Structures are given as structure tokens and as C-alpha cells.
């Protein structure tokens, strides 16, 4: 997989390029908006990672221009401004996700994987059921069962499970859960999200032999069949 990173801080860009290459991603770096625009037009990438504050041409203008030209490559916006309206503006400009600097590398990785997966699923029909091992979710009937046994979840637990199932096999962070399940964009000081996850885990894993919902230390959670 090949990414384009438009980032003027060369130390940060270098660190990210090395970090991502460890996971098999090849990263091209552009150091300003104009260079980024040229590279994005001239090559096919799997993902654009665009910093907002750039010399010559700002990141959002670059993205808007590329989208206006009909290019559909997924875009992840990196920004030092953590304000909600910047987030909204970024997504409106055609970004697929938004991450605030400074971020944990695990957070970045989790978001990249979610984007890659979403990109792969773009052409498939909307799912009506989700399955991971013997855990099944029926999105129409809004019912959940494991090993044929029906489980009773509260509405929020259902949304939490749905999000985890849609991202099965990938790490999702607490911040991603808060954003996607609760629509809240901040870091709570306490472990509110963990409590919800552990309640969900109690319902789906407690009485079964193989646990499906795992904690990834320092990163977040992952729902997957194998240990």
C-alpha cells in the first residue's frame, strides 16, 4: 500500500514514514501544499494524509481542489487545532477522518486501518447482518446472538457492538468509540468508555469459552475470533 503524506515538519514526516513502513505501508512525503497537489495528481495512492497548516497552499485547499477534480482517494486530515469546528470544516472539505496532533501512533494506525477497510467495502451492498465467529448481529431486527443463544443489549451497547463488528480484526481506540458511538469529541478524564466496553464484554463473552472482545494495552480494543 502506498500513502502520500503532505507535511511540512520534516522530522515528524520522517518519524511517521518509518513508523508506517514497519506495518508495510510505503509513504511518499511532500513538504508543501503545491508539491502535495502535484504528487497527488501524478500518482495513485491508497491514502492521502494531509496536514492543515502548510506553506504555499493550505491542506484543506489542496483537498478541496483534488475532490473538485473528482479524485476519490481516502483522506486523513492531521491538524494541530483540536477544535470541533476545524474538524467539521476538515470533513466538509472532503476529508474521511480527522486526527488531532499530537496523537498516539496507535491512534493513527487504528484510524488508517479503519479507513482502508472502509475503502475496500465501498462497493459492497449495505450489510444487514454482521458476523464474527459465532457472534451474529442482525441490523434489521436489531438482535444479537452468540452460538444460537439470543443476547439482550441496551441500545447503546448495540451501537457499540455494531461499531466493533464493522471494524472487526482492527484496533479501535477509546477516542474512536466516543466519536462514533456517542458523537462526542473530547477525552474524558476517567474510564467511562472502558466501563461500557466491559459491560458489553460481560454480555458477549462471559458465558462462552472463547473471548472475542480483547483489550490492546496502550491502544484500545479489538473484536476478533482468534485470541
Amino acid at each position, binding site marked *: 500500500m502506498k500513502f502520500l503524506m503532505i507535511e511540512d515538519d520534516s522530522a515528524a514526516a520522517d518519524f511517521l514514514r518509518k513508523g508506517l513502513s514497519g506495518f508495510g505501508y510505503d509513504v511518499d512525503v511532500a513538504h508543501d501544499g503545491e508539491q502535495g497537489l502535484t504528487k497527488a495528481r501524478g500518482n495513485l495512492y491508497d491514502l492521502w494524509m494531509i496536514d492543515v497548516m502548510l506553506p504555499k497552499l493550505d491542506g484543506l485547499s489542496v483537498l478541496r481542489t483534488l475532490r473538485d477534480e473528482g479524485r476519490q482517494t481516502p483522506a486523513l486530515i492531521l491538524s494541530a487545532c483540536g477544535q470541533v469546528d476545524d474538524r467539521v470544516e476538515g470533513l466538509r472539505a472532503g476529508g474521511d477522518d480527522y486526527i488531532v496532533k499530537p496523537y498516539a501512533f496507535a491512534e493513527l494506525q487504528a484510524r488508517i486501518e479503519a479507513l482502508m477497510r472502509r475503502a475496500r467495502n465501498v462497493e459492497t451492498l449495505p450489510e444487514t447482518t454482521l458476523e464474527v465467529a459465532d457472534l451474529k448481529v442482525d441490523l434489521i431486527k436489531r438482535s444479537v446472538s452468540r452460538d444460537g443463544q439470543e443476547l439482550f443489549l441496551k441500545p447503546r451497547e448495540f451501537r457499540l457492538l455494531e461499531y466493533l463488528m464493522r471494524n472487526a480484526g482492527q484496533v479501535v481506540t477509546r477516542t474512536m468509540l466516543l466519536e462514533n458511538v456517542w458523537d462526542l469529541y473530547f477525552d*474524558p478524564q476517567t474510564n467511562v468508555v472502558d466501563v461500557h466496553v466491559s459491560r458489553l464484554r460481560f454480555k458477549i463473552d462471559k458465558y462462552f469459552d472463547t473471548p472475542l472482545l480483547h483489550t490492546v494495552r496502550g491502544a484500545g480494543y479489538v473484536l476478533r475470533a482468534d485470541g
Partner: protein
Amino acid sequence: MFFARMAELRATTPVRLTLGFLSLFTLGSLLVFGYLNHQLSAALREQVDAMLRDQRSVFVLQQQEHGISGVYSLIRNELKDKGDDERAYRVLDRGGRVLLEAGSVALPELTLQPRIQELQLSAGGSVRVLGFSLPGEATVFVGIGMQQTARLKAGLWRAFVESEVLIILLGLVVGFWLARRFRGQVEAFNQLTLKIVNAGDLSSRMPVKGNDEFAALAANMNAMLGRIEKLVQGVRQVGDNIAHDIRTPLTRLRADVELALHDGNPETCRATLERVLEEVEGMHTIVNSLLALGQAEAGGMRLKAKVVDLSALLAELGELYGPSAEDNGLELESRVAADLLVHGDKQLLAQAFSNLLDNAIKYVPAGGKVLLTAVRRGKQVEIVVEDNGPGIPAEMREKIFERFTRIDPSRTLAGSGLGLALVKAFVELNQGRIGIGESALGGAAFKITLPAFSA
């Protein structure tokens, strides 16, 4: 020494003012004196001239009644009555011969003129002379000396000069006295400011004496110094706190990493790295909170306010925190009225309320209760987060919203001391107010009021 002091004093404002006023005064009084002198001279001259004209009438009458001998006896009587020192009489016959010369003023050669003439005398002074003919017989010149007038004017001038000198001296003395007094007080201010500039000693104060402008200035300056001192202390305190809050985890990090390196066991190293990550995240949170606070307080935060369904937001937060509260052995109850709308930034408000709920969960002991209420009161929406925990001591209630204030000074309980500062900043950014009081439940009650939105 004295002159040096004078030169030094001359630069001061009151001395410049005094000198200016004295020169203006002198010039003004000279003008007045000149005018008076001129008027006085004219009046005196007029008086003399009237006397001369009277004499002419008397002489003409006397000659008509008694002939030339009547004229002589008249001159004798006049000199006897008025004294001869300022008088002069000369009588000539038709041929121009002098018939009589009387009086102590020596008249020069004269010709007959219709008007009164003023003549300078070789002996000094001047004399006014009127000449006239007595019908058929003789010509008479009558002179009246101006010596007395001159003396009067000289006396006036002396009195003027003497009083002028006296006034100038008095003015100078008062001016210099004022200057020294003024200089002393201004100098005290100068010394104080210099002391603060050079030594950075903000604890010095001006003595306040009396109740003039200087006392008011000193009092205001002291008040300003007090405010600055408090601000500087605040900034120092924040700096110290940041250092402390970053140093503590750094110390732990260092110790942890050193131990792991020494141990060398991959399992230990992994566990250590995970703890390191957590510590770094904690420090991260502190720095982010400080940045957000700085932005919010400096007004650098762009706020695109929209209509927020506060009822839904609070219900969502109640639902988010419910399980967490339950796990901590707390009962979290929400009493949120329906359809509460405010105009603001949803995420900032959510952050503010969640910080309050975080705090309640952190500080209220197990078995306690947390109550979240929201109602509309007139044009305001009132949100209260209260509990039956230990509460906040009355003396802390003002300070608690400042950065790094913690009720527990030993900082044993986790927390950055920034949460409530953020709450206040975010509430105020949304045009709201926050206060703290005692809850009917027994613990703390945080009351937030936001302007209600009405379409």
C-alpha cells in the same frame, strides 16, 4: 552647591511655573504702571493748565479794575499765598522791556504764543507757561513749575519698584518651597519605580500621607502594585505547578526505565513500555488542557455557536457516565427537563459537564449519590451537578476554578487540577456563568446558568 541645587531645581515643573508666572506678573504690572503714570501725568498737567487759565482771567479782571498797579499787587498776593518756589511771573511793556520778574523759577526768553507751552529749565525740571496781553498796556507770562508733579511721579515709581521686588522675592521663595515639596514627593515615586525596575521587588509600597492628589496617586499606585504582585505570583505558581506536575511522572518514568534496563527481561521491558506510554499520555493531557485553557482565556478559540439540544446532550452524558458511577458504587440520577435549547458549542459544553461528572465520580465515596438537574428559569437554563460527597470548603470556593487548585494539597488524589478551570473557561465562552454552593444532599453543588435559546 547652592547653585547646583538651584540648577537642579530649575528643571522641575513648579519652578518653571513660578518663573513663568512671575515674569508674566512683572510684565503685566509694568503695563498697568505705565498706563497709570500716563493718565496721572495728563491729569496733573490738566490741573496746572486750569490754574494758568484761571490766573489769566484774574489778571485781566484785575487790570480792568485797578490798572497795572492792581496787576503788581495781585502778583505779590499770589506769591504770598501760594509760595514762590513753583511760580514765575514776568511782565513786559509794549516795547518788550521787562517791568517785573518775580518767583523763584527762572524763566528763559519767551515769545507770546496762544497756547500753553512747556519749557525745560536749565536748572532741571520743567515749567508750564502761559503768556497773554493785557489790553493797551503790557504782556504777562505766568509759569507754574512741574517739580512737585515730578516728585509725585518719582515717589509712585519707587513704591511700584519696591512692591514689585517684594512680590518677586516672595514668589520665588514660595515657588522654590513648592518645588522642593513637589520634588520630594515625585522623587519618592521615582525611587519606588526604580527599585521595582532594578530589583524586581514588587512588595514595596508608597507611604500614603494626607489626602491630596499625591496621596490618591500613592494609594492607586499601591493598589496597582498589589494587583501586579498577585498576578505575578499566580503566574509563578502556575509555572511551579507545571514543573511539579511534569516532574513527578518524569521521575517515575526514569526510575521505571532504569529498572527495566537493568532487569533486561523482555516481559518486564514490555510492561515498562506500556506504563511509560500511560505516563506520557497523562502528561499529554495536562499539556493539551493547558493549551485549551490558554486559548479559551485569551479568546483565541473560534466558537461557531449553533443551537444545542441541551436535554439530549445531558441525557447522553448521563447515559455515558451511568455505568461508570455504578461501578464506583454511586447512584447517578438525572432530572433533565425536556426541550432545553441553548445557543453554543456542543462539544465544549459536553466537555464542561463531563468534567463535572468526572469529578463527582472521582471524589464522592462509594455509596454516595450524584444528581444532575436541568431546568429553565425565565430566560436562563440552569444546570446543577450536585452530590453528597465531602463538598468544597467555603474558603476554597473562589480558588477552585483557578488552574492547579486542588482541595487536597498533598496531591495524592489523581487529577491535573485543570478540570474545573476548563469548565469555567468553556462555560464562559458559551456566555454562561458557573457558581458553587452547598447541595441539599450535603456535598458540593455546581450551578451553571446559560442563556436559553428562543427562536
